[in-house]
């Protein structure tokens, strides 16, 4: 029954069986105890009956000897009371009751009951059922006085029935039955505990057995309680490892295949994502491969505009007519590399494209590889640099010319008045200063390029810094008749700055303000010193900066094309230097401007 029960696991079956057999044992023992008690009680009553019989017989014989038949009734009664007898009687030799505990039967003829005979030596007994349905045992023994029989003595006891036995045993039942039951229960608990881990393992095993064939076996770890659960966990772990490993192996194979495909796609991706346009043409000049960039550069971004199959020279010349004459398409030059730059007129702006063609050599592919690159930015940078060189040359040669001319005049001319001589010398002096300043700027720019420009931060009295700035800039302001407003904070104190560079930056900003503000205009210098920030604003009512130029003003060499700006001398270096210096102090510089209204430059330097 238990063996095939579907729900119970093996350990639980063990516990169930244990309980069953223990209960059976306990019941059997209880039963046995009852039976034995019953037997013992019966024997006990029998032996006590026999001893009572003997004692009573002896007492009666003695009493008969002394008193004759007088006390016989009394003795029977006494015997009955002492022995708990059903009745006691003496039958005379004539068969008449000489005494009977039931007084009414005295002097009556004795009725011998019928039943099963019992015998112990000279004692005979009868087991019978009386009128009241009680099972009685009557024991009889002959009485002799002086070797003369005077009759026989009968005593009868109620045979102890099973129920009587049980009743007498019942009071001990709680102790005798409940304690074993408690022990059994405890035993079941302990057994359950001990087999706990095994039970979990057994559960898992039976679950596995229930799995349909082909399904993957999955086992769970158990809470580590004892050796078997630890062992189980080890098995589960190694099974999982094995599985992963074998999974890995098949994965590896698939991976290797996928990698090969992926690499191919990656290379294609790389080509597609290049910023340079790449195309491959066959021997007839027809495009066999074109990446995304070349499609964009040739204006073929529309999905229905397919480059592959078209003749490349057509497309290129269509975009850049000046290519028509160049050796790019000369069939004589197919085994040479050719590079050519051309202009492509676009909707938004003209672009300069560099086209290079190289023959495909060495591999299986025959034809040409074309590369198209947008070099507009580069060209712009080159142009700016050339512009700078022009300006620099001008800025260097102008003061030099003046110095030479005036010096020569002073040296050779005899007819110069003293006042004029002094004037000439002053001019030479100021030109030298101008030249020196420009050379400094150039050196700063080149240090900036190299990255060796550094801020030498020292404790500086701010008041003195601004004094120096104002000293340097006042002449310029006065010369142009500009209203110059200065607003400085009351408490200026000491800050850690590179005084020389900051002064140069401020002089540059104010100089620009003055330079690009017409006569009679207004320039202001407003300084705010907060707890953690130094803010300097240079405002002017000058020519302003257009929105197109605004993002470029801090770039090296940049000079606006605005005629009013071009009219002034400038290198396009001042603002980029200013930005570099401010950034070295951890700060930043920004500008707000409106064309023809004016500009405001804002410098913020954080203070530690």
């Amino acid at each position, binding site marked *: 029954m238990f063996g095939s029960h579907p729900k119970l696991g093996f350990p639980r079956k063990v516990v169930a069986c244990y309980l069953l057999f223990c209960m059976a044992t306990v019941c059997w023992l209880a039963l046995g105890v009852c039976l034995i008690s019953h037997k013992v009680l019966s024997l006990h009553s029998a032996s006590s009956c026999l001893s009572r019989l003997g004692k009573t017989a002896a007492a009666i014989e003695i009493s008969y000897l002394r008193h004759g038949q007088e006390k016989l009734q009394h003795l029977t009664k006494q015997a009955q009371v002492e022995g708990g007898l059903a009745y006691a009687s003496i039958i005379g030799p004539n068969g008449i009751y000489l005494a009977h505990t039931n007084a009414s039967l005295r002097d009556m003829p004795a009725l011998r009951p019928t039943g099963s005979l019992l015998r112990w030596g000279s004692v005979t007994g009868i087991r019978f059922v009386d009128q009241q349905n009680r099972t009685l045992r009557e024991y009889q023994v002959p009485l002799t006085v002086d070797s003369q029989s005077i009759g026989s003595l009968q005593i009868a006891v109620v045979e102890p029935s099973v129920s009587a036995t049980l009743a007498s045993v019942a009071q001990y039942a709680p102790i005798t039955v409940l304690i074993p039951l408690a022990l059994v229960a405890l035993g079941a608990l302990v057994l359950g505990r001990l087999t706990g881990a095994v039970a979990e393992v057994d559960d898992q095993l039976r679950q596995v057995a229930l799995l349909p064939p082909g399904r993957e076996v999955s086992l769970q770890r158990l809470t580590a309680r004892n050796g078997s659960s630890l062992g189980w966990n080890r098995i589960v772990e190694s099974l999982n490892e094995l599985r992963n490993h074998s999974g890995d192996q098949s994965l590896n194979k698939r991976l290797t295949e996928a990698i090969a495909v992926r690499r191919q796609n990656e290379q294609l991706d790389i080509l597609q994502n290049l910023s340079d346009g790449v195309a491959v043409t066959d021997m007839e000049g027809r495009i066999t491969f074109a990446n995304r960039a070349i499609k964009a550069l040739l204006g073929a971004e529309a999905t229905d505009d397919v480059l592959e199959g078209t003749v490349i020279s057509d497309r290129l010349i269509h975009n850049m007519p000046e290519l028509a004459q160049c050796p790019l398409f000369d069939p004589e030059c197919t085994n040479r590399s050719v590079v050519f730059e051309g202009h492509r007129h676009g909707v938004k702006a003209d672009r300069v494209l560099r086209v290079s063609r190289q023959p495909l050599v060495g591999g299986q592919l025959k034809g040409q590889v074309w590369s198209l690159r947008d070099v507009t930015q580069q060209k712009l940078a080159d142009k700016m640099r050339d512009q700078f060189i022009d300006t620099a040359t001008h800025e260097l*040669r102008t003061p030099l010319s003046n110095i030479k001319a005036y010096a020569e005049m002073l040296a050779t001319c005899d007819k110069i008045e003293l006042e004029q001589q002094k004037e000439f010398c002053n001019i030479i002096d100021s030109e030298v200063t101008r030249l020196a300043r420009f050379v400094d700027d150039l050196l700063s720019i080149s240090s900036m390029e190299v990255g060796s420009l550094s801020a030498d931060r020292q404790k500086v009295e701010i008041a003195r810094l601004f004094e120096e700035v104002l000293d340097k800039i006042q002449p310029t302001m006065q010369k142009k008749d500009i209203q110059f407003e200065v607003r400085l904070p009351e408490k200026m104190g000491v800050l850690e700055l590179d005084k020389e560079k900051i002064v140069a930056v401020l002089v540059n900003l104010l100089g620009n303000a003055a330079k690009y503000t017409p006569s009679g205009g207004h320039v202001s210098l407003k300084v705010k010193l907060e707890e953690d920030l130094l803010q300097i604003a240079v405002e002017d009512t000058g020519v302003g900066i257009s929105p197109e130029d605004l993002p470029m003003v801090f770039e090296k060499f940049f000079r606006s094309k605005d005629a009013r700006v071009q009219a002034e001398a400038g290198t396009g270096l001042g603002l980029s230097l200013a930005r570099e210096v401010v950034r070295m102090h951890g700060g930043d510089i920004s500008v707000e401007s409106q064309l023809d209204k004016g500009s405001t430059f804002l410098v913020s330097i954080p203070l530690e």
Partner: protein
Amino acid sequence: MNDKAQRILIVDDNVALARVIQFAMDGAGFETVTAQNGRIAFELAKKSLFDVVITDQQMPEMTGVDLCRNLRGMPEYEDCPIILLTAKGLELELPRLQHELEIDATFSKPFSPSTLVKTVNELLAAAVS
């Protein structure tokens, strides 16, 4: 020979330089007029005749080369000696310019004013003969 002083037009946006050239030319007995850019110079040239034009190249509104071109377009200045002063690397293109615009002499900055005076005298002498 003409006793009236020869008139020289000096064109340069570098005021100091224009002044020192003027000083040198005045000292050499010429009558001088200065202009700060090509446009002003052209107006002046149209108004009155000059014997020599000395001009800088890099100037706002009209460069020296353009001024040259415009002057050469006027019959009065077809043969006028024109001297070009330049700070730029036009040295490379000077032969072409000289040929194209018939610029008589070029000076790259810095230059010696006395040499300039000497050149002016030579050109004027050659023009007469």
